[in-house]
């Protein structure tokens, strides 16, 4: 018989109060109990005197006062061996793909912290084959790339395209962390990976939107523990896909509200910034291996100034912002080029040519935005010759940066394409210098690289 460490004295949907019998319960301990054949698990999040508060892993329907609890040794643990590859886990370390796992080694999900000495930075470029991304926000190995967007503008599609282009191409190890997103998409991703025999180098963790806030917030820690295993023990360059890191903050808000803690604006928890730092600081490269991460970030109520979004973006090396106004026009990926950027946009990193083309393109496109307003009042015919030229070339540039994606073949009916950065640079230069002035702008929509055929 395991030692009883306390008993339940209060219950609400997302929180239980526990009277502790002894003092050796600490924060992040896992407590369990059984009632009427159901097992309930909780994580301790607050201790005051003899009373501890804990958040349930699952639902608490049917639970009552007086039930006694035991402590689970080792806290929250994840499998820490080769056996994670090809497998799918819930945030509590249990495989959910219907096969048992014979554990080799387990590790607590909170333990790893990097020292400054360990962290390494390299400058090797990493091309994704997505024109707009490679051009406006190029990546380097070890980067943290954010994919920001409001609801329904294409974050998940872009994440899936990146898995398709980068993971398949590099054939490196990867971890997919599903946080508070749709179960349907998670399952479909798993099915596709399995069908294409691509699962062998990937491990997945899902705490999806129908799960408790405890489950959703833990998915990040559990997934990162797996990525760290691949980096530290297998010396791999690891890709980490997180869809969606905002949901982590959201889950933390739910927990914090239940504990009746004082919120900051919009109900976010007081500890938001430190919660984010805690996980983001773990996503780094060391001398042993690198972690390149792609993090989808939901923008609530289309408000990019949202506290949580801003706190996350401070950690990023680059960001792609998806915009509803662009999506409304049917231009996908719906990238807002003015808000998308990368630390690699620097003549020393991408070269003078790339750098200058980005600058020139942005100059054209910002003038185009102004011209659009003028045209709405006066019409095109009233523009000066130079403005007309900028106007037409900009529309072509805008159309050029749309791209048929592999993962949206079903939606567009066009086969997906990857485009080499050299081709992108050449095409942009050609459009800017007027090579395509005679071509109808519609011909540049949803093309890969241009080959001159558009001209006929």
């Amino acid at each position, binding site marked *: 018989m395991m030692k009883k460490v306390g008993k339940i004295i209060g*219950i609400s949907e997302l929180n239980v109060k526990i009277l502790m019998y002894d003092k050796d319960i600490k924060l992040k301990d896992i407590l369990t109990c059984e009632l009427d054949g159901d097992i309930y698990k909780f994580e301790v999040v607050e201790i005051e005197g003899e009373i501890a508060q804990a958040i349930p892993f699952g639902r608490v329907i049917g639970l*009552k006062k007086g039930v006694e609890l035991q402590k689970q040794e080792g806290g929250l643990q994840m499998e820490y061996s080769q056996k994670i590859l090809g497998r799918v886990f819930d945030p509590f370390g249990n495989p959910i793909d219907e096969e048992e796992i014979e554990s080799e080694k387990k590790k607590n999900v909170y333990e790893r912290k990097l020292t400054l000495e360990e962290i390494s930075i390299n400058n090797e470029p990493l091309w994704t084959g997505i024109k707009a991304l490679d051009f406006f926000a190029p990546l380097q190995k070890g980067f943290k790339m954010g994919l920001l967007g409001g609801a329904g503008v294409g974050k998940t599609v872009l994440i899936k395209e990146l898995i398709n282009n980068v993971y398949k191409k590099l054939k490196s190890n990867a971890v997919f962390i599903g946080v508070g997103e749709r179960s349907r998409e998670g399952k479909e991703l798993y099915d596709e990976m399995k069908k294409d025999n691509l699962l062998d180098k990937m491990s997945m963790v899902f705490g999806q939107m129908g799960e408790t806030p405890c489950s959703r917030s833990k998915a990040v820690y559990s997934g990162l523990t797996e990525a760290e295993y691949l980096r530290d023990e297998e010396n791999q360059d690891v890709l980490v896909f997180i869809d969606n890191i905002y949901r982590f903050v959201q889950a933390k808000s739910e927990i914090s509200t239940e504990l009746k803690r004082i919120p900051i604006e919009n109900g976010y928890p007081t500890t938001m910034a430190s919660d984010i730092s805690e996980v983001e600081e773990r996503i780094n490269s060391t001398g042993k291996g690198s972690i390149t991460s792609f993090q989808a970030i939901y923008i609530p109520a289309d408000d990019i100034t949202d506290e949580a979004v801003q706190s996350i973006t401070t950690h990023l090396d680059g960001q792609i912002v998806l915009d509803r106004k662009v999506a409304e026009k049917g231009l996908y990926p719906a990238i807002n080029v003015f808000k998308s950027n990368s630390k690699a946009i620097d003549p020393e990193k991408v070269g003078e040519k790339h750098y200058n083309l980005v600058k020139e393109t942005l100059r054209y496109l910002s003038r185009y935005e102004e011209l659009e307003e003028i045209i709405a009042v006066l019409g095109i015919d009233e523009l000066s010759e130079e403005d007309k030229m900028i106007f037409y070339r900009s529309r072509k540039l805008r159309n050029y940066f749309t791209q048929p994606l592999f993962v949206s073949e079903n939606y567009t009916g066009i086969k997906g394409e990857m485009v080499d950065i050299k081709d992108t640079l050449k095409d942009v230069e050609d459009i800017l210098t007027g090579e395509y002035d005679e071509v109808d702008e519609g011909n540049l929509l949803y093309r890969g690289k241009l080959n001159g055929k558009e001209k006929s």
Partner: protein
Amino acid sequence: MSTHIEDLLNEKIEKIKNQENVFDSGKVIKVKDYIIEATGLENVKYFEKVNIWEKGMGYVNQINENSVTIAIVKEYAPIVVGDIVNATGEPFKAIFAKQAIGRIVDIFGVDLLTGRAFDQFEYIDVENPTIPIMDRREVKRPMLTGIAGIDLIYPIGKGQRQLIIGDKKTGKTQIALDTIVNQGKQLANNENDIICIYIAVGKTKKEIKSIYNELLKRNALSYTLIVAATNDDKQPVVSLIPFVGLSIAEEYMKMKKDVIVVIDDLKKHADTYREISLVSNKTPGREAYPADIFYLHARLLEKGCQYKNGGSITILPIVETKGGDITDYISTNIISITDGQIVLSEKEFGKGNKPAINYGNSVSRLGGAVQKEDIKKLGATIRRKFLSYLETKEVYELANMDEMSPELRKKMQEGKQIQEALNQQKFSPLSNAEIIEKFEPLGD
């Protein structure tokens, strides 16, 4: 005279005798709208059903150190401090009767058209556990609405969650009704049985009656159930109604049926939930909604899926917006849960476009994956052409038609034709074959 008192006494004794399964009892110490607090009830379980002696019924919503908080779902007489509360030892469950198809029912198993309870019924959980991720299958079978703008351009699949969003009086409910009515035509060809469930969340009685009448008139009631909480029901009932509706849907899905659920509407549901949370002293977050408002709707809508046994639940939640703004907090929350949205706009409505779909803002995340081969390619082409036309139209509206390049002129003309072809009166569904015939000439 003594007989009267005797009668009362006997009646009371009889009731005590009949009152089975009395477990624990307590006393009301606080009454705050529909949330009460009681002492005693030491052995009560979370979400257990409790009775307030002769006055009402509720469920345990929170267990505190020295008291229990109860949400009231039925109140026959005003509850006051000192009233006796009895535990039942059972979780709070809804009542559902299979013969309720074709009727309007509440969560207590009452036929609202007659006011009588069904004689054969079963208890069902208000909310079942989340459907495990591995029990889901790919959404790929079409769920046909009969509306060209949807079936062709933004198709819906069986197991998809597709939001219908727009201002008041833009035809949101109409799209749902069209969809339900069109299922009557699909019954013969569908591999599974089809059941439609319309969930009225805090609607007026008049609205619910008129929806019933519409469905009756169009012979849709043989496969449709209306589950309703009216706007004068207790707020906890209004907040539970969509969950109960989906529990019923899950019953049918597990019997390998294709279930189509309409939730009308989730904005009202969010507001009800906010009210309950604030009355229960929960900390307010953005726009005073509680922090778990996303979780509430996420776990509700995650019940929509293509299930492993072949059955499915398609959910069409409705959200009402103000001033055409689909970027407010609740709307974007729900958009981020669903697999796409049909946006209806007052502007399109005003122009006489029916259904008044704003095609630029509408999305289907599944797209062609849920269309049959013959319509898939045409759909992609028309969608691309039409969106490109809408965008170009804005910029070139003031330009001189004669000076346009021939390509541009063709695009403008075709776009206009597509727009006209998309116009469709209510309750006049088109089959896929009819849609293809109509749009094929515009797709080249």
